[in-house]
């Protein structure tokens, strides 16, 4: 078996990315869609950190990963506020049944 290198990490991150896409496509609950988005962001972060280690780029990749984590925190806060409002308005959070922006 070959030694673990850049390709191994990229394969893991691409699989995680595919799981995230699958979750976003198939789940109806808005919170589950958010979890899929978190998986995708984590996959992107693995790529950033792996390239930062295995390519000759310095630590810029790790700084980008840090920025992605910050953006994920902001995104989760905003999205959950929106989900709570949707729940207050429609009494459910099924994204495929929400067709109007207001009652």
């Amino acid at each position, binding site marked *: 078996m070959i030694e673990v290198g850049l390709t191994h990490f990229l394969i893991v991150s691409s699989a995680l990315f595919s*799981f995230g896409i699958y979750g976003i496509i*198939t789940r*109806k609950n808005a919170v589950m869609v958010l979890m899929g988005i978190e998986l995708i962001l984590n996959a992107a972060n693995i790529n950033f950190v792996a390239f930062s280690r295995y390519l000759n780029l310095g*630590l810029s990749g790790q700084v980008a990963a840090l920025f992605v984590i910050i953006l*994920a925190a902001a995104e989760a*806060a905003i999205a959950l506020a929106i989900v709570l409002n949707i729940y207050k308005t429609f009494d459910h959070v099924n994204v495929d049944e929400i067709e109007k922006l207001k009652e």
Partner: protein
Amino acid sequence: MNIYDIIFYLFAAITLVSGFFVVSTKNIVHAGFYLLFTLFGVAGLYVLLGADFIAIVQLLVYVGGILILLLFGVMLTNKITSVDLRSGTSYIIPAVIGVGILWGALTAVLFKTSWRSKAPSGMDPTTSEIGRLLITDYVLVFELLGILLLVALIGAASIARRDKE
């Protein structure tokens, strides 16, 4: 096969298996807890990649913050006492086909590309270098992200608290 490879396969297995359960389990609370294991596995991968600071930030922000927020979202948007916490699914077969094609294409690209990779350097501590980059090369992005976080948190609080007129 040295110890590094074994630990890599362990963390990769944790990440991918729990990631699969996150998107396939019916129970939303279970999905939240599987997401916990996925995030832990990703933090382990960061450690293996020599990114100690990012791994700790991953644990603090994702596991300590975002996951708790998501679980709050689950608890607040489901009638726990009356309805079970099942979440419907749709378009499973087209999704499996599409995602399978996507993953196949991604891995094909991965193997076809000749990465100009170098032999990885040692596991030096990265915190001081990241801090230096944050206040030199990336200081504008850093400040903008600070403002963005402030705006996002104020916006989230005001959106979530808005009363119906």
